[in-house]
C-alpha cells in the first residue's frame, strides 16, 4: 500500500515536471483571477449604433473613486465587450453588473439581443435590473451621471426608493424575458437621459421591441393594477368640500373577465385602495369621508384607465391582464390565454376607496 501511494505521489510530481501536466490541470481546475486585478462593472449600457451596437460599461474599482467609463462598438455585444477588455489594464468583470440600460433607439429596434446576451453570458446575472433610456442613449445617460457621481449609485438609490414612489418599480432582465416569452409583451422602467437619471414612467415592449411609453397617470395606473403602491399621496377636492391630501397605503387589484353569452367581451379591473388622511380638514363625518373616498376612487380609476387604454391601443397585454383574469376564472383559461386580443376587448375599471381612521382622535 505504501509503495502504491509513494508511486502515485511521484507520478503526480513528475506530471507537473513534464510540461504537459499544468496544461492538463488547467483544463480540470477553474481559472483563477485575483480580485484586485479586476474592475467591477456595475452598470452596462447598450445602444444602437447603425446596424451594430455601442456598449458602455461603468464601474469603479475602488469605493468612492471616480467612475470609469469604457465604451466599445461592434456588430454584436460580445465583440464590443471583448474590445473593451483590451482598453485598460484591469480585467472588466461583469459579474457585478446591477443595472442594464438600453437606449431608446436600440429598444425600438429590439431588446432581444441584449437580453439574450445577459441570458447566455457566464458572468452576468438575470437578476440585473433593466432600464430603458427615454429620448437619448444609455451611453449619454451614463456619461452624464458619471459627472455627478456614478450611474450605479444613482440607480441603486432609485431602486431603494421605489417604495416611496408610485410611478416606477424595478424590473429584472429575468422578469422581462419571462413576460415576453409568456405573453409577448412586457414593460420596463424608463429613465431620463440627463445626468439625474430620474424615473420617467415605463417603456412598453411588444414582441421584443419598444412600442410606447406609459407616463404620468398611466405610469401610476400600472402600479395600481399590479398592486405595487406602498406610498402615494393624492390630492383630492370633493365637490362642495374642503380639499385634502390622502396618503395611499395599499392597493389590491383583481382582473375579472367579462363575458356576453359565451364570448369574451372585456376585462374589468377591480381595485381596492386604502388611504389615510395626510393633510386637510378632519374627516370625522361620514359624509365628508364618503366624499373623499369617492374623489380618491375617481382619481385612481382615471389612472388605471389610462394604463388600460395604452394596452388597448397597442394591443399589448404588457400588464398580464389575461393571466390575472385566468387566475380568477380558471375555467375560461383557454379563451383568456390563447384567444383574447386586448385591442378587441373593452377594458373597464372599478375602484373602491377606503379611508382609514387616522391616528388623531377626531378621525
Amino acid at each position, binding site marked *: 500500500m505504501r509503495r502504491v501511494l509513494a508511486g502515485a505521489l511521484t507520478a503526480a510530481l513528475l506530471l507537473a515536471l513534464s510540461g504537459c501536466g499544468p496544461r492538463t490541470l488547467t483544463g480540470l481546475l477553474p481559472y483563477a483571477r485575483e480580485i*484586485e486585478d479586476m474592475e467591477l462593472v456595475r452598470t452596462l449600457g447598450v445602444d444602437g449604433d447603425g446596424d451594430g451596437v455601442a456598449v458602455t460599461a461603468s464601474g469603479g474599482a475602488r469605493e468612492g473613486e471616480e467612475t470609469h467609463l469604457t465604451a466599445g462598438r461592434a456588430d454584436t455585444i460580445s465583440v464590443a465587450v471583448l474590445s473593451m477588455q483590451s482598453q485598460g489594464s484591469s480585467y472588466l468583470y461583469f459579474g457585478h453588473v446591477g443595472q442594464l440600460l438600453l437606449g431608446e433607439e436600440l429598444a425600438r429596434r429590439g431588446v432581444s439581443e441584449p437580453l439574450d446576451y445577459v441570458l447566455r453570458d457566464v458572468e452576468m446575472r438575470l437578476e440585473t435590473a433593466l432600464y430603458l433610456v427615454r429620448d437619448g442613449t444609455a451611453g449619454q445617460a451614463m456619461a452624464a451621471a458619471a459627472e455627478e457621481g456614478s450611474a450605479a449609485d444613482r440607480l441603486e438609490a432609485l431602486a431603494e426608493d421605489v417604495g416611496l414612489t408610485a410611478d416606477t418599480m424595478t424590473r429584472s432582465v429575468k422578469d422581462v424575458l419571462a413576460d415576453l416569452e409568456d405573453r409577448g409583451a412586457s414593460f420596463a422602467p424608463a429613465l431620463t437621459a440627463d445626468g439625474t437619471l430620474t424615473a420617467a414612467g415605463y417603456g412598453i415592449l411588444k414582441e421584443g421591441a419598444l412600442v410606447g411609453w406609459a407616463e404620468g397617470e398611466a405610469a401610476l395606473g400600472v402600479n395600481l393594477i399590479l398592486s405595487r403602491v406602498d406610498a402615494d399621496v393624492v390630492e383630492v377636492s370633493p365637490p362642495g368640500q374642503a380639499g385634502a391630501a390622502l396618503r395611499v397605503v395599499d392597493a389590491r387589484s383583481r382582473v375579472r373577465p367579462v363575458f356576453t353569452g359565451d364570448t369574451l367581451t372585456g376585462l374589468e379591473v377591480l381595485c381596492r385602495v386604502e388611504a389615510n388622511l395626510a393633510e386637510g380638514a378632519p374627516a370625522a363625518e361620514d359624509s365628508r369621508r364618503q366624499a373623499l373616498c369617492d374623489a380618491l376612487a375617481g382619481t385612481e380609476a382615471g389612472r388605471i384607465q389610462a394604463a388600460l387604454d395604452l394596452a388597448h391601443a397597442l394591443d399589448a397585454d404588457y400588464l398580464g391582464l389575461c393571466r390575472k383574469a385566468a387566475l380568477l376564472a380558471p375555467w375560461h383559461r383557454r379563451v383568456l390565454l390563447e384567444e383574447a386580443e386586448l385591442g378587441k376587448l373593452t377594458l373597464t375599471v372599478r375602484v373602491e376607496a377606503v379611508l382609514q381612521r387616522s391616528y388623531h382622535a377626531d378621525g
Partner: protein
Amino acid sequence: MRYERERTAPHPRREPRFAGPLTVEGLAEVFAHCVDFTRRPVALEGESACTLTLCYLGGMVRMERVSDYVLRPLAEDGGLRRCPTAAAAMARMEAGALYNLGVARRTTLDQGAFDLVDGWCLLFFPGEREALSFFVGTEEKRSVSAPENETVLKGARDGFVESVRTNTSIVRRHLKAPELRIVEELVGRQSVTAVDVLYLEGLTNPELVEALVERLRAIDIDGVFATGNIEEYIVPAARTPFPLVQYTQRSDRFCAGLAEGRVGLLIDGIPLGYLTPAVLGNFLQAPQDKSSGWLMATALTLLRYGCMLLTLFLPALYVAMVTFHQEMIPTRLALSIIAAKENVPFRSGFEVLVLLLAFEILQEAGLRLPQSIGQTVSIIGGLVVGSAAVEAKIVSPAVLIVVAIAGIAGYTMPSQELSGALRIWRFLLALLAGAAGLFGAVAGAAALIIHLAGLESFGVPYLTPFAVSAGREAREHVFLRRPLPQVKDRPPALHPRNRRKQR
C-alpha cells in the same frame, strides 16, 4: 546490492524481572550503587533474641512511620520478647504487633524490590526464607485544587492530582455506589505506572471495559511520562489528528461520564482523567453546559458548531471567492476588498497561508514563553506586527480579519486537541481552495467527512449520532441539551446495560 533497513530485534519483557528468593543480599545486589538503599540491623531482645534487618529506600518512606510503627514496638513490645523463636515473632508481628495498616509476607526478590520502590520497608528474620513488608510510604503529593485548564464557575473544584490513589478517592467521593470498579494495570517497563480503569458494574457495557483493559495489557513501553504514552496505544491515533479519547481535569465531569456508561482511565503521575469512548460531539461540549440553563447551553453548543465551521472554512472560502468566484461577494464588499488589496504584492491564497502560519507561530511562541512574556509576544505579534504589515501593504486588512476571525473561532473549541485538528485541516482546505476554488474546498470538505466517518472510538462511530442512527434521544448528548428532567436515557451508542438513567 539490496538495501535493507537495519531493524532492532524486539526485546522481550523478562517476567519476573528479578528471579530468586528474597534475601538481604539479593536486594543489595538489585539496588547496588543506589545511595538511597538503606539496611539497618535491629536487635530483637527476649527469648528469641536475634538481629533483624530492616531495608528501605530513603526518601520513599516516611521516617516517622518507620520509627513509630516498626522500630518502637520492636524495642518495647513485651509480647515479642516472650516469643520463643524468630518465626513465632514474625507471625506475631504479621498479626498486629507492629502497627502498620499494610503488611504482607514476601517470598520473592521481585516482590521485595518493587515493594521498596513503592515505599514499603522489608524486615528480614535470620534463618527465615520470607520477609515481612510494611507500608510506610511518604504519600507526598500536591494537594487537591481547582483545575487550572478548565474554568469552573459553577461546579466542584476538586481537580485531579498526580496521585492515582488520590484521584480514585475523589471519584469514590463523587460516586459512592459500591458498584464502582477500579481495575489496575501496570504499564511501562521502567516507570511501572499504575493505570486504573474505572467503570460502574451493571451499567457500563462490559465489552468496552474488556477492550480497554486488553489494549492496556498489550502496551509494552519504557514508561508513561506523557499523556500520549497511553492515548496513542489505545486508539488508532496514527490515522487521524482528531482526538478519540476525551480527557478532563474535573472530577465532576469525569464522574458524569462514568455515570453515563463510559469507561474512565486514571494514570498515576498524570493529573487527568480519560473517558472512552469519545465521539466528535463530546469535544464540543463544555463542562459548564450541564450547569447552565438548557436554552443557554444549547445556544452555546450551536455557536460552537458554527465556530467550528467558521474556523475550518472561512480562510478557504475567502481564497475561493476572491480568486475564483468573485460573483459570490456582494458588490460593495468586493469593492472594499479591492480597495484593501491595493498595492499588496501577494496572491490572496499565499497571503492567507502565510498569515495562518504566522498565527500558528505567534500562538506557539506565546505558549512556550512564561505567561507574562507570552502575553507581550502575542500583543506585539498580533497588534504591532499585524498593523505594521497592513500599513506596509504586505498583507491586506481583509486577509488579516479573515485569519483573525478563523483563529478566534477556533479558540471557542472546548478541546485543544480538536482545535489542533481543525487547524491542520484549515490549512489543507485553504490550499485546496487556492488550487481549485470552491471545487477544491468542497472536495476537501468531502474528504474530511469521509475521514471522520471512518473513525471509531472503541467501536462507536466518531460521527455518532450525525452519521449513524444511534436511537432515540441520541442528539441530546452531543448537539442539543433539553431540560435534564426530560432526558431519560443514557446515550444508546454506548450500549449501557441499564439504558434508563432517571425515573
